[in-house]
């Protein structure tokens, strides 16, 4: 939020959640819970981890939001970085807008368009391979939903990345345990997910997904110059920060009423912002 010198950290999860709430309310659209689920992950990535001084620099780290339906969290971060302005942000879901429910690469700061689940990891693997072939040290990040691990194509890419030891590839799986029509354990069991990634040859760690410092420490500890690709299984709460959304299937698609919106904003104020990692 506001640090001791009075500066706002617009990349803290508090601001990202607030933008998600404001814009989804204004546009009267859903996917709120899925976006809130990754606010801390996005905050950690765009606040501290990603090496992107300029989104047009070919040598920048790449990020693909494979769970594209959480694009509002990404837009909030791009806004926080100053790459999209207030007026552009306010076009979210409007006509002739580059800011749809799912991200489009034509928007500055979005590396790849997504929206069809199970596609992102293979593109990320290709991006990591391109970096290796070019002799560039940049890293590639992909944020997957847990339910996206239902897709066979995800596992094609998991095998490929492990076989080619794409160590500069870092995946964060948002393990909120929910999908559109139910809980992942009821729809198509993923357990034991960490064992599955490890069995496929990945360096896998499980981290509290709302602990920005822990996320930053875990990712900062990865060897991205050699060895296996890396996956962070981030334990998250769907709808994080809004009590009536947390863990509720309804909030995959549902938009907020006026009363629900006021309550959500108030609860976000209470939750506030987690501090940056002091370890890095």
């Amino acid at each position, binding site marked *: 939020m506001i640090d001791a010198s009075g500066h706002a950290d617009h990349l803290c999860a508090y601001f990202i959640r607030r933008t998600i709430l404001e814009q989804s309310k204004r546009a009267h659209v859903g996917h709120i819970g899925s976006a809130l689920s990754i606010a801390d992950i996005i905050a950690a990535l765009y606040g501290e981890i990603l090496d992107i001084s300029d989104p047009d620099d*070919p040598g920048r780290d*790449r990020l693909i939001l494979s769970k594209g339906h959480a694009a509002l969290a990404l837009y909030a971060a791009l806004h926080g970085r100053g790459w999209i302005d207030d007026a552009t942000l306010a076009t979210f879901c409007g006509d002739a807008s580059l800011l749809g429910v799912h991200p489009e*690469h034509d928007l500055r700061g979005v*590396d*790849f*368009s*997504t*929206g*069809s689940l*199970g*596609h992102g*990891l*293979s*593109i*990320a*693997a*290709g*991006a*990591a*391979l*391109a*970096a290796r*072939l*070019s002799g560039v040290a940049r890293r*590639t990040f992909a944020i997957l939903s847990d339910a996206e691990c239902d897709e*066979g*194509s995800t596992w*094609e*890419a998991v*095998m*490929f990345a492990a076989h*080619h030891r794409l160590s500069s590839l870092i995946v964060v799986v948002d393990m909120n345990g929910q999908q559109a029509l139910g809980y992942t354990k009821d729809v198509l069991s993923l357990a034991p997910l960490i064992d599955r990634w490890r069995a496929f040859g990945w360096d896998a760690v499980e981290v509290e997904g709302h602990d920005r410092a822990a996320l930053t420490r875990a990712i900062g500890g990865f060897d991205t110059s050699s060895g296996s690709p890396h996956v962070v299984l981030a334990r998250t709460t769907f709808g994080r920060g809004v009590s009536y959304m947390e863990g509720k299937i309804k909030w995959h698609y549902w938009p907020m009423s006026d009363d629900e919106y006021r309550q959500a904003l108030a609860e976000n104020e209470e939750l506030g912002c987690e501090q940056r990692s002091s370890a890095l």
Partner: protein
Amino acid sequence: MRAAFVRALIELADRDPRVALLVGDLGYTVVEPFADAHPKRFFNVGVAEQNMVGVATGLAEGGFIPYTYSIATFAALRPYEFIRNGPILHRLPVRIVGVGGGFEYGAAGASHHALEDVAVMRAQPALTVIAPADHRQAETAFHALWDVPGPTYYRIGKDDNGVVDGLDGRFRVGRAEMVRDGMDALFVAMGPVSIEAQAAVDELGRAGRRCGLAIVASVSPPPVEDLAAELARRSLAITVEEHFVNGGLGSLVAEIIAERRLGCRLVRCGVRVPADGLTGGQRYLRELHGLTREALAATAVRELAA
């Protein structure tokens, strides 16, 4: 055309370090020369065509020109949505190469017969779609289009010997290549079955029926002006394609006739019925669907008399 493809690709890769080849565990005795010449830019991704296209998308975003290679059905249809949301949506120079369009994998059965690939690829306005008639034309096309900015689909045949007489390897993007000029009717042909169309035209010529023959390898962008000009001069057009008649070359010509308000009558030779479980060699399947030179000539005689 497979040998022409690999030969062209090695030459392109020699010149340009961006060229890479990904195969979906197919291409035995075909792709090895590329792997030997450029081992660091050759990847057998395994039996995983969706990932092959996704990886190619990431490579292309990073500055490479990746070619993906498999049998046409697996190259085009299995990862179709990955092609759509990947290189097409991102406007990236991924080259999808599908080998064995039509009935080239005859006895392998319906799973291996690519009869709708041109239709689904042609539906994408941002995709260049190339279906060469013979290996010489294929080689010209590979050299002509290797560094265009957007994605390309190549539908190539297995035959590295047969040629369309008079084509002489000519290829121009967005153009049709005329190889016969007769005015009684216009044959319009796509892919290796063009050799049958050319033989039919020549047989008709010996019987006193003079037909034109336009070869369409640049399916998209389509040779609208060339075809419109040739169609306007004739009262009968016969399209020839080893493909379903819906959505492919026959549909393309029908669109031109309708949109240009031409008076030309159209007969579409191609596949009209779904697979029924019976299979056989390419020659047998061409006979079954009226795509041999004899059948095409008979069709022309019948329609000219109608």
